[in-house]
């Protein structure tokens, strides 16, 4: 069956460093991969989309890569800030829709 896995542990990093979150998938070939941010008690908010034929996508301090050979997406936040602390979810779209379990990121001042 299809499976999506994100960093299982919470990720703590120092302010100013680059946070890297991982999303791995198996038994699936998504056409699109999206990353969302979710704050406690709120609905997820869309951040970035990357298509299967794209290697990298950037938006301000965010960068997403998509490696269909290794079935992995990496999500980077450069120059991280305490306000970036949240849970980040990857989402895959093909003929079905799947969310990862999320990675909780804490940026320490």
């Amino acid at each position: 069956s299809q499976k999506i896995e994100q960093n299982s542990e919470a990720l703590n990093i120092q302010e100013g460093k680059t946070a890297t979150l991982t999303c791995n998938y198996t038994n699936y070939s998504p056409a699109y991969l999206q990353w969302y941010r979710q704050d406690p008690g709120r609905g997820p908010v869309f951040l970035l989309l990357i298509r299967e034929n794209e290697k990298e996508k950037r938006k301000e301090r965010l960068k997403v890569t998509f490696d269909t050979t290794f079935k992995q997406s990496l999500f980077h936040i450069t120059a991280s800030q305490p306000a970036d602390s949240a849970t980040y979810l990857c989402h895959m779209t093909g003929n079905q829709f799947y969310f990862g379990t999320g990675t909780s990121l804490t940026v320490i001042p």
Partner: protein
Amino acid sequence: NAGVTQTPKFRILKIGQSMTLQCTQDMNHNYMYWYRQDPGMGLKLIYYSVGAGITDKGEVPNGYNVSRSTTEDFPLRLELAAPSQTSVYFCASWDRGRTSYTGELFFGEGSRLTVL
């Protein structure tokens, strides 16, 4: 422009009771979805709809029913509530018709349901 609106925000049900979670979007999106999110788990798709009058099952449809009589509304019905349905429910919508497709799902703020 309110986006996706869910009601109620919180609800406590007794085992065996029924209720409907309401979801309305004012963006004229054709696709709508219901997800549930359990602690430490990702979002699981319950049901989705690609337009008025069309619904389909997602990953975890058992114990739920939906209808889509209008573009705006996509209510989720829980029949005979069970403790396993204690969760946070999110409604989302998507406009697949735009040529500049971004894949952006718009989510409501969630409905927290507890079944005792």
